[in-house]
C-alpha cells in the first residue's frame, strides 16, 4: 500500500516576547506594533501542531513513531523556547522579529533537519486561540 497518511503531534510552550524590528527606534516599533512592542514584554501559551506525512512502514505500520517525534520536538523546540524570552534568551530571535510567522518558519526549519527526507512536514502554531499561522503555506 503506497498511500500517504498524515500524523499529528500537539505540544505547547509558554514564552515572553515583544515585536521589535532591530534598527528601528522604540517609537517606530510602538507605532507599527502597538502594545505588542511593549519594552517590558508580554507573553503567550503557544500551541504547536506538527504534521508529518508519509507512507506507513509495511512492517510497523508507522509513518513515524510518535514517541520519537515527541522527543525530537521536546529536544529541539521546547527546550529552546519553553519558559524563555524569545527576544533575549534565544539565538534564533536575537535579531529576527519573533512574530508568529517567523516563529513557525524557524520551528519548521529546526524540525525539517531532524526528520527523514522521505517525510513531508507542516507546522501550525497558535499564538492565541484565534491567532495562528501555518508553514509551508
Amino acid at each position, binding site marked *: 500500500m503506497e498511500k500517504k497518511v498524515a500524523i499529528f503531534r500537539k505540544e505547547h510552550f509558554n514564552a*515572553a516576547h515583544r515585536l521589535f524590528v532591530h534598527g528601528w527606534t522604540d517609537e517606530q516599533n510602538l507605532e507599527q506594533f502597538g502594545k505588542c512592542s511593549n519594552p*517590558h*514584554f508580554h*507573553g*503567550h501559551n503557544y500551541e504547536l501542531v506538527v504534521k508529518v506525512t508519509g507512507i506507513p512502514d509495511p512492517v510497523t505500520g508507522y509513518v513515524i513513531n510518535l514517541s520519537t517525534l515527541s522527543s525530537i520536538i521536546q529536544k529541539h523546540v521546547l527546550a529552546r523556547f*519553553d519558559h524563555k524570552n524569545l527576544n533575549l534568551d534565544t539565538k534564533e530571535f536575537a535579531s529576527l522579529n519573533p512574530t508568529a510567522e517567523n516563529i513557525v518558519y524557524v520551528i519548521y526549519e529546526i524540525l525539517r533537519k531532524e526528520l527523514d527526507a522521505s517525510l513531508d512536514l507542516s507546522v501550525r502554531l497558535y499564538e*492565541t*486561540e484565534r491567532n495562528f499561522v501555518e508553514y509551508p503555506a
Partner: protein
Amino acid sequence: MVFLTRIEHFNAAHKLYNPSWAREKNEEVFGVCANENWHGHNYELYVTIKGTPDPETGFLFDVKKLSEIIKEHIIEKLDHRNLNIEVDFMKDKMCSTENLAIGIWNQLKNRLPAAVSLHAIKLYETPRIFVEYFGQS
C-alpha cells in the same frame, strides 16, 4: 440567587521570583518559571457575580457594563503587560496566579452596583492550570 459569568482574556509576561532570595533558591523553588528574562501566558479570566434578576429587565446586571468594568480596571492594566513590573495592584507581591486572582478580586469588589456582589474569580494561566478565589469568608 443567580450567578452570571463574563469571560475575558489577556496576554502577559511574568516570572516567579522572590527578590529577597538568591537566584539559586528561586530556581530551586520555581524552576523554569524563575527565568529572569520572563516568560508569558494567555490568561483566561472568569468573573462571576451573583444576585437576583431585576423584575423589569430580567437582568442580574447588564453584561456589557460588567465587561466595561472588567476592561477598564483589569484588562487595560494587564493585557500585553509585564505583571511583575507594570501593574500597580501587584506591586511588591509575588506574581503567582493565586495572588493575581486575589488582586483582581480586590480591584473589582467595590466597583459593582449594590444589588449584585462578586462571587468568584477564576483565572486560567494555561488550559490546564487555573485558580479560583471566592473572597475572604
